[in-house]
């Protein structure tokens, strides 16, 4: 019995990574859910919007680094974030102008818009590879760790170490700030209120004099901002490759659907549910259990429910279960 070591091992391999990953997924899902709530289609290009936003952030970061500007112990990319958001927002607004507006005027069905977004996704995907290439890019600078496993062991004298990467801490803090700002914006400001009104009942909103073009524009800008932040945080914490963001689309939509599409609170809850399910189902519990149970009962096997290769299957399974039993999600979004 060694509860402390078990807790530390759990925190090091499940809780901390799950928390950071969950925050990244939640930010991505927030953007997707906003688009769904207001523009009424599932934006498949969201993953690649994240990638493109990160690309812009990397380019600006390189510019800053070339000029000798850094952000102390924080990654320079955070400094580049506002510029990257502006560039990404300009890009998606351009896309809306060139592509989506046409279909909106036609009053196209949501399914058509989904396929349109799929086309946009391929274009963005290709464009992004043109700009930044397909190789792995590491753009994290500044301090690497809040606490390393070795230091933790030395401090506490435990056998297990707990490592908290700086990027994990930054991810969680940034996510909290961003989510706070978003909810304040949606609840308190006039534009936010008009967005919610537009989402709840489009006709009524139009009758009461809300400018639909403005609502659409603000939605795109916010979604672009959320996508860029999520993308940069993910890239800082893990690694950046132009095509890996495409793979994030599944957990992001799983999170949005679990929480209830169109419901911002649901997207956040969904993000953490998906992230922790992925990590916990594929984690080998042998070490933690060995600490917890008496020696005679220590497990021989790995006590792993599923091999890590099947990580994506977890998102799929959650998606299917929710769609079968709770089609509107936990927080009662618009039906998926």
């Amino acid at each position, binding site marked *: 019995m060694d509860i402390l070591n078990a807790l530390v*091992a759990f925190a090091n391999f499940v809780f901390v*990574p799950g928390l950071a*990953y969950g925050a990244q997924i939640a930010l991505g899902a927030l953007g997707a859910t906003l688009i769904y709530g207001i523009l009424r289609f599932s934006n498949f290009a969201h993953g690649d919007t994240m990638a493109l936003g990160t690309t812009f952030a990397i380019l600006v970061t390189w510019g800053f680094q070339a000029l000798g500007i850094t952000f102390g112990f924080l990654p320079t990319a955070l400094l580049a974030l506002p510029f990257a958001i502006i560039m990404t927002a300009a890009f998606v607004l351009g896309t809306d102008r060139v592509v989506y507006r046409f279909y909106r005027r036609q009053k196209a069905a949501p399914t058509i818009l989904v396929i349109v977004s799929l086309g946009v996704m391929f274009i963005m995907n290709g464009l992004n590879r043109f700009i930044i290439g397909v190789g792995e890019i590491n753009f994290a600078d500044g301090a690497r760790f809040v606490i390393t*496993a*070795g230091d933790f062991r030395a401090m506490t004298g435990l056998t297990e*170490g707990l490592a908290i990467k700086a990027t994990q801490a930054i991810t969680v803090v940034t996510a909290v700030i961003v989510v706070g700002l978003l909810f304040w914006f949606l609840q308190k400001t006039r534009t936010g209120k008009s967005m919610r009104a537009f989402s709840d009942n489009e006709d009524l909103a139009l009758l009461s004099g809300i400018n639909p073009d403005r609502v659409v524009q603000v939605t795109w800008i916010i979604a672009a901002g959320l996508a860029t932040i999520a993308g940069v945080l*993910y890239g800082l914490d893990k690694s950046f490759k132009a095509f890996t963001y495409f793979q994030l689309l599944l957990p992001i939509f799983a999170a949005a659907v679990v929480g209830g599409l169109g419901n911002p609170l649901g997207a956040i809850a969904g993000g953490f549910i998906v992230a922790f399910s992925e990590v916990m189902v594929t984690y080998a*519990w042998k070490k933690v259990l060995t600490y917890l149970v008496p020696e005679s009962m220590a497990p021989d096997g790995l006590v*792993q429910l599923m091999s*890590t290769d099947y990580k994506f299957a977890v998102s799929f399974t959650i998606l299917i279960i929710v769609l079968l039993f709770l089609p509107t999600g936990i927080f009662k979004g618009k039906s998926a």
Partner: protein
Amino acid sequence: MKKLLLASTASVLLASTAGAEEIKLGILIGFTGPIESLTADMAAAAEFAMKEVNDSGLLLDGSTLVPVRADSTCIDSAAATAAAERLITSDGVLGIVGGDCSGVTGAVLQNVARPNGIVMISPSATSPALSSAEDDGLFFRTAPSDAREGEVMADILMEKGVKSIALTYTNSDYGKGLSEAIANAFIAKGGTVTINASHEDGKADYSSEVAALAAAGGDLLVVAGYLDQGGKGIIQASLDTGAFSTFGLPGGMVGDNLPLAIGPALDGSYGQVAQSDGSGSATLIEMGKEAGFNAVTPYTMESYDAVALFALAMQAAGSSKPADYAAKVMEIANAPGEKIYPGELAKALELVKAGVDIDYEGASSVELIGPGESAGRYRQFEIKGGKYETVTFR
């Protein structure tokens, strides 16, 4: 044209001398496909060796070797089998240098070479599965099996006092074969493998893979992957979470990019890579420069050596019939005898004719073990200050 005329005149002249014949050897490697960048040099080296033999005029009383190229495609077994059929039935080759990739080599061996009784010497197939393949004594390779790398790695680990390892491999035939070889060899020597799990290349995040590896535990983590791919991600995530601090690095993880990306934390990790320390390799590199091929290209030295083995085995048997010379291949390749290096084929042919024992070393330090595959030389290294420092050769 002039050269061709000369060559044909020469061959007619030679053909007319008593007992001399034109011995065709197939070069069955992937001129198209995933390793096409290697095969140009491989074929050039093989043909260079044939030229050296022909120039000496000593093979079987003035017989000559004639190359016939065929494309194995590296991945398409059906195409490789068809190409091999053509070599044997229509061109009438008496031996095949090839195949190249393990999959097609196995297919050609079973479907064409064995039924027709033709000897194959592969310069580049490394799959352990080929060691146990039924070959009627017809299949040899100048490339070492990955099983051999597993043995070498297990030896190194044992010497370092490692009792248990966690093992992860890139999800491919190469990774799987190598990881099984390492695991089997290590367990046979009394070690424990706590986990043997695959990882996919090209992912952004390997923290959950590392979490499983860490849960299984072990003195060190052996990463049978690629240095620019998942292998690097696994090492980075292991160091970040403090799961492992020392790594065992097989050949796929050797390259300057790795210490560059990981930094000083990689110091103290060790492993091995197939590399020859023999003087023969330097000789062939020099000869290649003059003849216009790059012997540093992987498996080029092995290609030269494959042809040399054919010629010397035929000389030793006094016959170009596969059934006669197949048994001689092991004899001339291994000790005892006078050591033979690249550029000394004429001397070797003379010695063999005189009945003197030879030990063909060649460019890649050829020593055939087990079912006729290269023992392989491995450079054991340890990473110190971001450099792969050579510890010893095995």
